[in-house]
């Protein structure tokens, strides 16, 4: 059997993926709002704005909850509690104090901390040697960085985001990605560079 024949034929359906992530048509206005503008609209009871904000942030919130709680069930609860808090307290967001993403991060962190406190933890024995694990300041810095990166990833077009996910988080080489997505290697390289550039733009905006 030739090498070509051995390759699995994978027909990537980007339209299916795009529809799955954005199942309902939305007005352009809400989609084009900044995070802060969405929060202001949510404060006025705008459910469409809430829908847009949810899709932008649900994966970063869930990732943060998983990182802090380490348990999918509790992370799901914390994510739902975060969005309930956003709906309830969007009115307390003050745009003059800064963009929406840090405010949302604080709301998510508080919901997750509440969930952490709810867990019974037996008293730990004092270790004999200092731990190499990151301390609270380092962990906070890492969480904030991950939050920004994950939020920025949500800004990437549907045909670019999977390339970075496969390269960075699934450990696939460029040629393996080309095989996996059934697209030419040249396209993988072009889209990957474009995705990194777009991500860099988005991260600069979120500084």
């Amino acid at each position, binding site marked *: 059997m030739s090498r070509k024949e051995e390759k699995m034929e994978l*027909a990537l359906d980007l339209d299916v993926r795009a529809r799955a992530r954005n199942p309902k048509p939305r007005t352009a206005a809400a989609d084009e709002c900044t995070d802060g503008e969405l929060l202001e609209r949510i404060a006025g009871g705008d459910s469409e704005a809430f829908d847009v904000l949810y899709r932008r942030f649900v994966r970063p919130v869930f990732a943060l909850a998983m990182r802090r709680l380490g348990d999918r069930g509790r992370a799901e609860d914390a994510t739902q509690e975060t*969005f309930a808090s956003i709906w309830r307290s969007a009115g307390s967001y003050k745009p003059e104090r800064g963009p929406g993403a840090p405010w949302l991060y604080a709301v998510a962190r508080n919901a997750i901390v509440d969930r952490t406190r709810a867990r019974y933890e037996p008293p730990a024995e004092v270790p004999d040697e200092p731990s190499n694990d990151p301390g609270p300041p380092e962990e906070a810095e890492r969480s904030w960085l991950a939050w920004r990166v994950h939020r920025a990833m949500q800004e990437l077009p549907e045909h670019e985001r999977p390339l970075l996910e496969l390269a960075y988080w699934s450990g696939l080489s*460029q040629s393996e990605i080309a095989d996996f997505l059934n697209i030419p290697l040249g396209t993988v390289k072009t889209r990957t560079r474009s995705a990194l*550039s777009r991500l*860099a733009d988005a991260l600069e905006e979120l500084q």
Partner: protein
Amino acid sequence: MTREPNFEELVGEDLPAEEEARLRRAHEMLLAAGPMPELPPSLEEPTTGERERSRQNENVYQLLPRRRAGAALALAAAIALIAFVGGYVVGFRHDGFTAQYSVPMHGVAGVDASAKIQIASRDANGNWPLKFEARGLPKLKSGFYEMFLTHGKQRFTCGTFGGAGAKTLKVRLNAPYELQRGDGWIVVKELPGHPVPGPTVLTTA
């Protein structure tokens, strides 16, 4: 452990220094951030807004004149019926499975059947949920069908099922393997008293 991507391989070596530094910062932040987990089905759709809004609405009400109470009750019953039917339809349609791509299968010589495997995103436990749809797989009086991911001569089972004859068979399966290491999929027929694995009936080759 996941292989760390090579920056030069990703962006090439022909970038201006300033652009290269900018992309390298994004590259390093991606590495430091770590993966975003796939969402569980319960978080695929926002529900909080609706729930909260209805909770708020519960506290804002007005007593109706008595003559309108009957009409209001009828309206409430109609809304409840619509909500029930709507919820049923939505629940029936949205089963938490989001296909990322699909792989067609065809019958081997002498087998007039075809199939499609839909593959969802891998979950945090390493499972790839699959939806398998086949037409023309005969019902077996005894025995069953089994689907495998293949890698050369190796086979990795993804589950077993029965045939549906002329009707379309739809079944949920799962692959707890690195799919990118596979080179195809097959469905075989397992019959009692016969060697295992049995003859291949569907393949992607």
